[in-house]
């Protein structure tokens, strides 16, 4: 009796490996998708509340500081740009330039909580706290949550700076640095959506 042993074919590699590339690593994308889900739910609450209370939302934006919102957008975008330049530098194996760009990203990123601090002080002086109405309740809830995510990003930046200083990243391996970059850009994207909702639409 003849027995034939057949082995399963190994899985074929993707036709174009670059198309299936995961920037950073899988773990950071689980975190980013959780962040998008969390803010997605809050955005839904915002839109439903806006539909139910159009007058409150129309009047609310004029009472917030557009200058603070614009400054924070500039800080977030500029910090994101600096991280993109840090990634570009490490791809050329330029560790010192990478560290300088990460330092710039940190300083610019720290501008966000500083502006937020003065903005909240200014709000409270105008009598705008979390109980000032539905618009301001959603504003504090969404923007404070975003501030928490920015804080995680700043801690991540410090970690990645320390690792870069220790020579952990190179043109051959910069996965951790790219993962932090992905998180920071995603947090920037969320702010780009928050900004018009509270500071522009009136």
């Amino acid at each position, binding site marked *: 009796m003849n027995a034939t042993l057949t082995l399963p074919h190994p899985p074929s590699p993707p036709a174009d490996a670059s198309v299936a590339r995961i920037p950073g690593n899988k773990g950071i994308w689980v975190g980013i998708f959780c962040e998008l889900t969390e803010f*997605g739910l809050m955005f839904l609450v915002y839109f*439903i509340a806006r*539909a139910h209370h159009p007058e409150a939302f129309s009047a609310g934006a004029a009472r917030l500081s557009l200058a603070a919102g614009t400054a924070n957008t500039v800080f977030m975008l500029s910090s994101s740009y600096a991280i993109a*330049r840090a990634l*570009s530098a490490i791809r050329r194996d330029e560790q010192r330039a990478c560290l300088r760009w990460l330092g710039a990203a940190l300083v610019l990123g720290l501008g966000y909580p500083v502006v937020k601090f003065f903005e909240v002080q200014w709000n409270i002086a105008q009598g705008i706290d979390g109980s000032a109405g539905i618009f301001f309740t959603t504003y504090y809830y969404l923007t404070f949550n975003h501030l928490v995510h920015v804080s995680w990003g700043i801690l991540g930046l410090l970690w990645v700076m320390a690792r870069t200083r220790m020579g952990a990243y190179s043109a051959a391996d910069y996965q951790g640095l790219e993962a932090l970059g992905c998180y920071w850009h995603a947090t920037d994207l969320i702010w780009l959506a928050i900004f018009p909702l509270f500071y522009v639409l009136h």
Partner: protein
Amino acid sequence: MTPDKRLTRTWLVLLALTLGGGFLGESHYGGIVLAVAAALLVAVKSRLVIVHFLELNQAHPRIRRVVGTYFAAMPALMVLTALAGPQIVRWTSLGG
């Protein structure tokens, strides 16, 4: 154009669009006109960040689709809320 120059150009365009958003916030426009203009700004700015900073054009299609759809839905919801507020109220009210 070098990748660094492309990044710098993208950043400058993003800053210019942000100032445009600030101008919209100060403008006398309101209602659907303001909602469409603000939504367009969000759509363009988020697309620039997704393509040039996050580099998702070279990423796994699932990541690209999820992030792309999310930041296309956001501006769409801004316009939808301005256009169909009463309808959204009907859909999201309990009881009659």
